[in-house]
């Protein structure tokens, strides 16, 4: 045990002394969260919209002028033709269309409720979401203004319709995605490289000749990265809560437990790569091409898996990040508990155990 502690301390010295690696280690998640966060969720200004006003009454005009006055929107034109709307959406000229039905004001006055349709181009889900929120709040604003003049409350029902991407895939989902990405990168690449480095410099041989058991050599290599990765998880979560205003809806404890599982998956992958390769460059290339790329492509955080050919959909099932991504999204954004994600957890666990057995086996083969 004492040897183990000495070894882990040495590993920490390696990591902490390498300022460049350290910068990558902690700079990367911060950069990614900020870049993704602000590139995707920044507020939208002067979005071009179309107003379709079949009502042409007091209420519709007033709402239209409110919308025109806000700096979020810029009315491209008013039209009556549905073809015109569709064409404008397809050409990407407008982001949003607001449709007032006939008798808008009349319905509002006599039935105390009226409907407005908001159509958004949801191929860019973040913008679509933001814009519909802006529009609805302007409408709500008008509604409460009306309410002041009368006893009976008015209700304007804003029907939103998301074109092209009705489920709004992609909103906020980059945080779980970045988490998978960063952990993959840190754990797989750093572990693989640090073990292969010892092979390259010849220190591995010296360690294997020593009475220190090989399995402990590997374990003590993994410990510092486990701890550093957990720190990374904390950083990412803090950033997403305090900088991006994305709260953790579900259990933080569960989130950490699942993260530890995924970190262990990644560490085993790293160990597996390090057993199979003999140079740092190769280890790094395999980690990048073999791990990072599938994470970006097949975890579902950038490209929807549903739209892929069946063969690729099947392939995506063996990518551990896909499962971790689903798990984190479920806990963080949907606020689901363990009962909802036990299947994904089990799959991730299975992959981990499989990798662990395979890499320990190949490690033994190398020794004999």
């Amino acid at each position: 045990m004492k040897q183990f502690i000495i070894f882990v301390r040495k590993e920490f010295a390696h990591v902490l002394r390498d300022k460049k690696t350290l910068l990558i280690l902690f700079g990367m998640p911060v950069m990614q969260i900020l870049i993704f966060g602000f590139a995707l969720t920044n507020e939208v200004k002067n979005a071009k919209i179309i107003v379709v006003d079949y009502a042409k009454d007091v209420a519709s005009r007033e709402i239209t002028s409110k919308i025109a006055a806000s700096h979020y929107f810029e009315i491209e034109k008013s039209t009556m033709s549905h073809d015109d709307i569709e064409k404008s959406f397809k050409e990407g000229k407008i982001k949003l269309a607001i449709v007032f039905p006939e008798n808008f004001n009349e319905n509002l006055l006599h039935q105390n409720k009226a409907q407005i349709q908001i159509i958004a181009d949801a191929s860019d889900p973040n913008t679509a979401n933001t814009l519909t929120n802006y529009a609805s709040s302007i409408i709500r604003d008008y509604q409460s203004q009306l309410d002041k003049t009368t006893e009976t409350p008015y209700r304007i029902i804003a029907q939103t319709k998301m074109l092209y991407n009705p489920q709004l895939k992609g909103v906020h989902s980059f945080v779980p995605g970045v988490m998978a990405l960063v952990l993959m990168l840190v754990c797989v690449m750093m572990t693989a490289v640090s073990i292969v480095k010892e092979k390259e410099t010849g220190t591995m041989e010296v360690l294997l000749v020593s009475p220190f058991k090989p399995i402990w050599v590997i374990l003590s290599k993994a410990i510092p990265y486990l701890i550093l990765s957990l720190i990374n998880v904390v950083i990412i979560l803090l950033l997403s809560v305090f900088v991006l205003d994305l709260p953790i809806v579900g259990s933080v404890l569960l989130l950490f437990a699942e993260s530890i599982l995924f970190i262990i998956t990644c560490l085993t992958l790293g160990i597996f790569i390090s057993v199979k390769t003999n140079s740092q460059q190769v280890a790094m290339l395999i980690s990048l091409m073999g791990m990072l790329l599938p994470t970006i492509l097949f975890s579902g955080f950038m490209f929807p898996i549903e739209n892929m050919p069946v063969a690729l959909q099947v392939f995506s099932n063996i990518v551990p990040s896909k499962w971790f991504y689903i798990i984190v999204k479920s806990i963080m954004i949907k606020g689901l508990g363990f009962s909802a994600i036990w299947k994904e957890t089990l799959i991730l666990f299975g992959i981990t155990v499989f990798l662990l057995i395979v890499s320990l086996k190949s490690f033994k083969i190398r020794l004999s």
Partner: protein
Amino acid sequence: METVIKTEKLTKRFGDFIAANEITFEVNKGEIFGFLGANGAGKTTAMRMLCGLSIPSSGKATIAGFDVYKQTEQIKKNIGYMSQKFSLYEDLTVLENIKFFGGIYGLPDRDIKSKSEALIDHLGLQGEAKKLVGSLPLGWKQKLSFSVAVLHQPKIVFLDEPTGGVDPVTRRQFWDLIYDAADKGMTVFVTTHYMDEAEYCHRISIMVDGKINALDTPVNLKKQFNASSMDEVFYQLARGAKRAD
């Protein structure tokens, strides 16, 4: 005379390839045993078996009295090893390296402290103790590497081409350290490509194509092959080799 390494028809096969073919030899306590051979002759394979890193295919061997098949753990406690690649951590300081390797051999803290002080004094590294090993000249690194390999006072130390790339003066100093260790009763098992170093050994063996083709003192070998130098002896033997890297 106490025998510390004893092999009998030790063989290692990789599929059809016989890397080490029925090697038989003995090394005595306190002896400096040179293990020579061209590249690909099977030196490294043989040495790996002796260190407990590789299980032999057949034959017998005992290291410090322990069996290479069953008692690799005890063997590891009784040997030191220095690889041909320089094998200390460049991003740790001199002192940290000593502490680390002392630590994984299970030396008590007090021992490590006194030993590292003695070692640093002995090598004249007082000014460099807290410097990163990477900043030291190669010759010093190699001397330090050897001293670390024998820190736990093993019965046998295996040196795999320890002086590669070092100038003759430093090599000479390195051999002083080897003689020191041998004088204290440590057995030194060393592979080398330098024939002047072969002359420093008490006895040498020369491997050709996985077999030991010659084994004696340098003086006797020169007589046997009617050669004026070890260079000639080696050349006569290695010329017939079929294997090469």
